[in-house]
């Protein structure tokens, strides 16, 4: 018998049904993953299981059986003993779920006491040790602000374990963390599940994370489950048209023919998720489905056995033909090396002073960027990868002149730049919600650069032209940013940057806040624009598959310095720096879903603070291959080929 059995669960907010008739089961010791894009109802489902729904929402129908007990029938008081006792939950933002004014130890003690146990010091330390917090006795006396994000997520997990739960619900537990830390936390969760024979409900939007963790997978779309399958079958042959499109929208990292796969457009899912409150008669995916039949519009599709254990909710009878092959880019820029550099940054440094005390004395510096040298040719893309806080954004801002460099030079077409060079370089930012002024209309936003530079010509015409260039309708000029989805906003931001006809776009994680299918649209757009306008990109990201698809060269940054630099194939396929290797190994890979393989080249610990970088090689405290000399001096760049350099003593 399964541990948790959810039957026809529906959640209502007013008249809308963000979760509609969801059924699944989780056995003891099993990991079930709920996969879906933002807004599809994953989190609400989890909250409904815990009976922790927000004020406006309520469970409209269905039953939740946990170990034979009906949770929907329990009183609030009884439910409290289930929460944290039999079922525990951890959330995406570890910082927001810990009380900032209590020590970690006190918070765990509280959780222990609440579940009837006494809270001896030893038990707290044991829990902290179980979640892999080094020096647990000392950490127990610390406050949340003294811990890094990964550490806080571990502490949260320790609290969740305090009640010895039989089911752990993890809602995007690693989305806010860096890849190397994400890998550590995922390992930890999986280990704990094995050890304690705990069941786990993992909520994620990341096909790679799910591939690593789940035994079975449920795909949600617009409030309904559309596919439930065991992992191997799911990753071998996804059944539902929506799921197959999700896979196709990802850049394919493992294809044998790299050149051909880069030449291919990413498949996108047309349209967008139907808004909450839409009335559906038939299949919810019908507007975006390429295979839709007439019956799809009128009748809710039934569950079908697609393969052994793989249930798909679709009218299509059999495993049908694959999706139409995606088209090639008509003219992806012919990238030739050896042209003169468009941009050259030499020995760029940005140090932020650290001030303390009443007199605001400078007590040190955050070495956000500490000697970065980069060159970029016209029409090419250089990717800058690295973990959060390593200085990627600051490099971008320093090149642009938004941030005054402490030292170093930036040359454009061989000419030394001083301050801003507005027309030549522009930036596209990460957060599509923070990058557009909510008080201005789209037309005004895009026209801003034209006005500032007093570009001659008809501004209105040019704005419409730009909107069409980024794939939006020209009549959208009068609307406000809040009327657009994340992907559309990112297009507007790109149009704003293009308005002044720049030669270089610095894209700071332009797709990391977007869903997979929307990410594919933006990547296609960027590639098209590059071909049309001979643009160069400095592409800042932490997503390795995107790098592989888009870039010609890659620079890997660690703590303010570039530790490895080379062509895509050199850096991603024969990485020589241990940090690059760890980064590549930590990136969740979809292929893991097929064979269940897990890599174990892990960087231990957290990235150090750029205010106090370790002596010698900055990476040595985390490096599995560190030697004595690594603690003494920072390695000089070692040339491995004409284009490939790495800063490691062992790279040679």
């Amino acid at each position, binding site marked *: 018998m399964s541990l948790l059995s959810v039957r026809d669960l529906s959640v209502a907010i007013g008249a809308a049904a963000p979760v509609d008739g969801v059924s699944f089961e989780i056995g003891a010791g099993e990991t079930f993953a709920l996969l879906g894009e933002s807004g599809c109802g994953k989190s609400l489902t989890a909250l409904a299981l815990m009976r922790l729904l927000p004020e406006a929402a309520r469970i409209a129908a269905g039953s939740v059986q946990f170990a034979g007990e009906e949770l929907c029938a329990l009183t609030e008081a009884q439910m409290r003993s289930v929460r944290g006792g039999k079922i525990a939950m951890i959330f995406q933002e570890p910082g927001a779920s810990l009380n900032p004014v209590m020590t970690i130890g006190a918070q765990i003690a509280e959780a222990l006491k609440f579940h009837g146990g006494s809270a001896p010091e030893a038990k707290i330390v044991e829990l902290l040790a179980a979640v892999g917090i080094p020096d647990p006795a000392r950490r127990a006396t610390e406050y949340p602000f003294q811990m890094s994000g990964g550490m806080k997520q571990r502490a949260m997990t320790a609290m969740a374990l305090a009640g010895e739960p039989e089911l752990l619900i993890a809602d995007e537990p690693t989305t806010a963390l860096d890849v190397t830390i994400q890998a550590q936390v995922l390992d930890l969760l999986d280990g704990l599940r094995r050890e304690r024979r705990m069941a786990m409900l993992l909520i994620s939007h990341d096909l790679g994370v799910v591939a690593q963790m789940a035994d079975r997978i449920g795909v949600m779309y617009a409030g309904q489950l559309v596919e439930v399958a065991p992992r191997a079958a799911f990753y071998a042959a996804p059944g539902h048209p929506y799921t197959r499109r999700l896979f196709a929208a990802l850049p394919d990292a493992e294809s044998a023919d790299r050149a051909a796969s880069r030449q291919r457009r990413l498949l996108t899912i047309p349209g967008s998720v139907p808004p909450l409150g839409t009335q559906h008669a038939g299949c919810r995916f019908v507007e975006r489905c390429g295979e839709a039949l007439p019956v799809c519009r009128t009748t809710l599709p039934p569950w079908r056995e697609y393969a052994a254990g793989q249930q798909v909710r679709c009218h299509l009878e059999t495993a049908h033909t694959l999706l139409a092959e995606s088209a090639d880019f008509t003219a992806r820029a012919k990238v030739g090396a050896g042209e003169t550099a468009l941009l050259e940054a030499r020995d760029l440094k940005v140090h932020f002073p650290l001030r303390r005390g009443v007199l605001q004395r400078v007590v040190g510096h955050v070495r956000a960027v500490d000697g970065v040298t980069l060159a970029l040719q016209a029409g090419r893309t250089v990717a800058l990868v690295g973990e959060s806080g390593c200085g990627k954004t600051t490099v971008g801002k320093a090149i642009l002149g938004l941030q005054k460099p402490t030292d170093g030079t930036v040359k454009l077409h061989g000419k030394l730049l001083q301050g*801003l060079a*507005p027309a030549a370089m522009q930036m596209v930012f990460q957060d599509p919600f923070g990058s*557009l*002024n909510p*008080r201005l209309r789209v037309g005004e936003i895009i026209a801003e650069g034209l006005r500032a530079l007093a570009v001659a010509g008809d501004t209105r015409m040019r704005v419409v032209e730009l909107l069409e260039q980024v794939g939006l309708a020209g009549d959208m000029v009068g609307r406000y940013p809040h009327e657009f989805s994340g992907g559309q906003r990112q297009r507007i931001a790109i149009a704003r*940057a293009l308005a002044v006809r720049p030669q270089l776009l610095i894209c700071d994680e332009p797709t990391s806040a977007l869903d997979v299918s929307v990410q594919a649209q933006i990547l296609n757009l960027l590639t098209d624009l590059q071909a049309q306008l001979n643009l160069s990109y400095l592409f800042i990201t932490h997503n390795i598959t995107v790098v592989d698809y888009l870039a010609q060269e890659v620079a890997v940054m660690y703590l303010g310095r570039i530790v490895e630099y080379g062509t895509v194939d050199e850096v991603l396929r024969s990485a020589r720096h241990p940090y690059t290797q760890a980064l590549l190994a930590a990136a969740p890979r979809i292929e893991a879903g097929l064979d269940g393989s897990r890599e174990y080249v892990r960087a231990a610990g957290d990235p150090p603070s750029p205010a106090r970088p370790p002596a010698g090689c900055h990476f040595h405290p985390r490096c599995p291959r560190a030697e004595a000399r690594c603690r003494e001096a920072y390695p000089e760049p070692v040339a491995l080929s004409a284009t490939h350099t790495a800063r490691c003593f062992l790279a040679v």
Partner: protein
Amino acid sequence: MLQIKFVLLWSDLLFFVLIAAVVVGGVWAGRVEHLRLAWRQVGQSRVGMATATVLLAFVLVALLDSLHYRERLPGEQENYAVEVRSALDAALTGLRTRTEKTYSAPLATHLFAKESLDADLGRDFPRLKHGGAHLGEDLTAQGGDIAAKAIKGLGLGLLGAMAFGLVSLPLRRAAPHLAWNAQLATVLVLCLLGGVIVALAGDYHVLGTDKVGQDVLYLTLKSIRTAILIGTLTTLIMLPAAVVLGLLAGYAGGWIDDVIQYLYTTLNSIPGVLLIAASVLMMQVVIDTHPEWFATTAERADARFLALCAILGITSWTGLCRLLRGEVLKLRELEYVQAARALGVSSARILWRHVLPNVMHIVMIAIVMDFSGLVLAEAVLSYVGIGVDPNTISFGTMINTARMELAREPMVWWSLVAAFAFMFVLVLAANLFADVMRDAFDPRVVKQ
């Protein structure tokens, strides 16, 4: 030929400018989408509509009391009376002129204290000159008379409210989703109260009389202008400084930020009351040594009043300035501001287009929140004698004079209660309105 001469006091002028600014701002806000939405939310709130109605009633009284004039004296030559009166005074001529000898309780027919009348009659409560004079000697009819007048007043009020409902019908049709019912209910309550008071005020002192026999109702109505003007003009004076300095400090950073921060921390660390006391006394001296600057006592009182507004403004801009600086520090790092900088947009333009519109909600909320604080501050300052000119009628001066009366046996309570009740209603309405505004304008408040 004109029998009056209009007088425009400085405070009147500023008040009119302010009202014009509010009207222009309202028209402009109607065109900007997010402001229109926020105002609509205010309009949809029952509390918002009700309190707005109450506040409007107060502002109307203040406005009437700001239309000043001097009457022409009889005679051949063109001479004008030294007293400056307002439209409100004209409307309340009856109340203003029917003064008694000294204290009398609300609705009383006799003075509050016994006096020796005639040698043979001994000490007794003398009859009022005006209060209940129409009753003649037959005082048994007083209760019935009051009840009859009150009922007549209620009827009058009901008629008034119905007339208002009819007149405002097109407005309700035009915007049917707003909480008009709350507004109508408030108007009804105001009309009923007003009707009763009007019906009674002709023959009685509804709220009694004070030490020199002035009608307390008249005094409270006159106090409204002072309270409203203190609350709004002070803001008008401090707003430019707070906004400009706050934006500059937050956006420019560096030494400019240091200087501005230094300025407001210094100002903030001087005890406000001391600063105000010192400045007011200095102003007083200046005003007293230059009697030739002022044609009438009203103008002199007005000068002191404006000085008080300015001083309150100088001591109260720091809070808003600090708030704005913090918000701008955050906004400056936002990506759309960075994007604008990358496009080469000038700093002035960035402040105007990207920063100011995104801190406007803070400014608006601060204005309304500060209002009630300032009304109360005036009362306290006047109470300790460093507020408005003693000749200016205000809640503060009313309370100040009432303070002695509290010690009398039996107690004279009505001046204090009247001032307190009016001020309470005003401040409560302003506070509730501020809450509604905050909910509507603050983007951090989650909308349902």
